[in-house]
């Protein structure tokens, strides 16, 4: 159980508001880590910091021991960090298949000039990409809808496609921002199983989620933050009974529910 991604003393402030403060945790190989906290606790900010959309004021992120802090956002996909967004951000005018192909674009080897005319490198690159895309579409169960416009999919499938698009970049770490948002209990349950099963494809998963049922069921480790600060960390059973967590969620004086 070695740490794959190590976050240490991460900090960012927007004006006077300290959104993330002195946050340290690590993702271990073969584990699902959930990042939870009340609304506005800074969860999405953490993912934005990890994927280069914000530059941290302080702190360090290492992947396999290498410092990856503050890279430009487009570099993270190449080093194996793939993310989804809280409000689904698909390329909705493009087809399901093209969304997946964009996800794996850095793995397609031919160059800019070769795009303009038919040539063996392009043909081979596209063929390999198509085969790979087929595997991913199979994985997320969207193979029959591959010619559909992404924007026409029902919401639940759009979320799955977004996960598929992230998988397409062949990441070692998957960062999911509220994958179950807007889903009914049945869908949420299935999604939980699905996320857990993704450990076959990636090394580690960091998931932000509000639905405590799925968090408790599928996580190996839970990181709880409030007002940007770490308040508790550990396996589900431990976090569940932590009085500090209960206080953050339910107010002072609350006991286990």
């Amino acid at each position, binding site marked *: 159980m070695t740490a794959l991604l190590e976050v240490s003393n991460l900090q960012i402030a927007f004006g006077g508001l300290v959104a993330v403060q002195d946050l340290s945790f690590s993702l271990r190989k073969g584990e699902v880590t959930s990042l939870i906290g009340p609304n506005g606790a800074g969860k999405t900010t953490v993912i934005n910091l990890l994927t280069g959309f914000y530059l941290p004021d302080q702190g360090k992120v290492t992947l396999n021991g290498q410092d990856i802090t503050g890279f430009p956002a487009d570099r993270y996909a190449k080093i194996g960090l793939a993310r989804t967004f809280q409000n689904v951000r698909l390329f909705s005018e493009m087809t399901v298949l093209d969304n997946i192909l964009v996800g794996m674009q850095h793995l397609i080897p031919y160059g800019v000039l070769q795009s303009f005319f038919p040539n063996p490198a392009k043909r081979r690159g596209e063929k390999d990409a*198509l085969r790979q895309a087929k595997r991913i579409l199979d994985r997320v169960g969207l193979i029959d809808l591959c010619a559909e416009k992404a924007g026409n999919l029902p919401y639940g499938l759009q979320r799955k496609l977004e996960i598929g698009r992230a998988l397409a970049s062949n990441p070692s770490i998957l960062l999911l921002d509220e994958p179950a948002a807007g889903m009914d209990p049945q869908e949420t349950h299935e999604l939980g199983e699905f996320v857990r099963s993704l450990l076959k494809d990636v090394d580690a998963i960091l998931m932000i989620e509000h639905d405590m049922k799925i968090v408790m069921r599928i996580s190996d480790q839970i990181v709880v933050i409030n007002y940007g600060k770490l308040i508790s960390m550990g396996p589900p059973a431990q976090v569940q009974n932590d009085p500090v967590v209960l206080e953050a969620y339910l107010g002072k004086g609350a006991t286990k529910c």
Partner: protein
Amino acid sequence: MKKREMKLSMVIKVVMLVIALLIPLLHLKNYIMRILITAGIYMVLGMSLNLVMGIGGMVSLGQAVFYGIGAYTAALITLKFGWSLWAVVLATIVISALSGFLLSIPMGRGTGRYVAIITLGYCEIVNLILINWESLTRGPAGLMNIPRPTFFGYPLRSSSSYYYFVLACVLIVYTAIGWMLNSKLGRNLKAMKEDSVAAEAMGINIFRQKMIVFTISGAVGGIAGLLYAFNIGYIDPTNFTNVESLAVVSIVTVGGLGNMFGTIIAAFGLTVIPELLRGFSEYRQVIYGTVLLVIVLLDHSIPGTRLKRYLGEQMDRVKGRFRRKSAPMERNGKYDSIIGS
């Protein structure tokens, strides 16, 4: 797109190509050939702008800059060094592509109105340089007597031979852009246009994409300029002002953003309509403006959208009578190979 529609559009394109190829055999008046050649030049220029506006999703208000740089490069090299056509074409592409590349640098990651203002300013700057660098460009007097090039020993002197040369350029540009759109680069550009944040998260470097799209756009716009310079044999800075840029913007808008075939149709229509209106003398511009307005309103206003929907429904009803059963969703080849295998 459905198979039947694809087939239909293919048939239309082939028919149009055949007509285009046969036109010179009709021995039309030089005046008409000249209009068709101008339309062809605007097709190339329109496609160069549509790359930026329709595919890259950025409004460029200074497309005439590449047109002008291409025209001046081709004219100056021909007049001063007398290089062969291919060398001139290559040099023009390189220089105008370079000017597109330079234009993309100050943009950084900015989008929307910043791009519009930067392109507008760039065009003004280059126009002033063309006017004031008299030792090179002869300033407002312009460059005269630019000889028509020779194509494998065959001089493109007659208007039909030049017509074919322009037609070939239109075809090459159209086909190459089509290939590009169906490749990694095309997908990345579309992704950047739709959601640049998500595109970045997928490892797409937005700045680099912009450089690429402006470089290509510059190269294609430069080809249009070359065609213009050799066509008339005379160029001066007034041919390449922002008035010209706006004319191209209207071609792309009327033809549809991102729709290269639409640009070709619109370039043809918007070149021919003013000529047809010559009989109306001073009312010409008024009618032309009204036509433009109506086309845009049809596409972008609520009544226009309703009208189109109504017409579409009527079309579907008519089609429904001829069809026994609604066909299952048809897909084009790329998707067949995925589902079929």
